[in-house]
């Protein structure tokens, strides 16, 4: 099943946009600790947050005074958006609060239904979506990469091995990697 794309635009006041920038700075300083926790959800291919302070950004185009500062969330994930939001609410409510706590109309991160409605109200249909490996889940990709790393190591070690050694090591390799194959 191909990943699901989600585009969510959330209006935020100036003070909150400053706070959000601060949290990103803090996340960068912690050397990826926040990302690690979110990556642990294991169904996110890519997720990006950006801030738009001026619509459009191009200074050659007159500013759109009707469009407020906006937190842009672009993500691709395995499964349905319901599963995705549910996991966020259960696993990383603090991170959601840190990003969306001051967003206009945000109902708080702790209850699934209001968050799901909020996201539905602020999401935008993707007209065209492309995935290079549409059938590969995030977990499948991570496992395949880990398998390749172990396999490369195995192949290096087996250069010049005799038949008996190879057969023994092959069995051990397969046993250790069976969850990845």
């Amino acid at each position: 099943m191909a990943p699901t794309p989600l585009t969510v635009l959330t209006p935020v006041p100036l003070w909150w946009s400053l706070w959000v920038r601060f949290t990103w700075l803090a996340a960068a300083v912690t050397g990826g600790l926040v990302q690690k926790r979110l990556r642990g959800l294991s169904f996110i291919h890519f997720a990006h947050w950006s801030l738009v302070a001026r619509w459009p950004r191009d200074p050659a185009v007159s500013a759109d005074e009707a469009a407020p500062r906006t937190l842009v969330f672009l993500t691709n994930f395995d499964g349905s958006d319901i599963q995705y939001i549910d996991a966020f609410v259960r696993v990383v409510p603090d991170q959601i609060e840190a990003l969306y706590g001051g967003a206009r109309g945000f109902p708080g991160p702790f209850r699934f239904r209001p968050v799901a409605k909020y996201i539905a109200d602020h999401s935008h249909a993707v007209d065209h979506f492309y995935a290079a490996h549409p059938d590969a889940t995030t977990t499948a990709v991570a496992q395949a990469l880990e398998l390749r790393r172990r396999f490369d190591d195995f192949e290096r070690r087996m250069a010049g091995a005799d038949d008996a050694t190879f057969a023994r090591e092959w069995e051990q390799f397969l046993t250790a990697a069976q969850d990845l194959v």
Partner: protein
Amino acid sequence: MAAATDAFVVLARVRAGEADAARAAIAERWERPPRSPFAAAGGTHLARLQVLKPPGRGSRECVLLAADVDAPLAAWLERMRAVAATALDAVLGHCAFYPGASDPAAFRRWVAANRLPVGFSVIGSPDATLADVGAALALRDELGAFAERTQRMSAAELHTTWREWRDA
């Protein structure tokens, strides 16, 4: 270590009254062909193209083009410009001041003016290029097939079959 991928996000305002034409161009030039123009550029992991309306009453519609691509981004953008010029022009041609993809320098300037910096990212496999992912998935399949067909072989047969597979 530098990340193997870069994020690319462009948000550009659509000229007044041309949002439906931009959507139609996406349907015609990006959705309808059997192969997405994003695939033609090479190094595109995931990408999206959409026309959206910013929050706020009376705000004007924009085109959002976003992609996660093999680093470096500049090389991917140039490939994209070269191989998907017609498809890009069909959609971005409805955006303000878009110069067209035929002039590389003007195209790069327009992209830079409309590019949205990414503040925070979570990436499933941040160290893997598209080729790494493709090779790993292919190896997994080959390895599974090899393991299946070599069950119950003697040590000598197994080793010979292995060499044949790896030398092929």
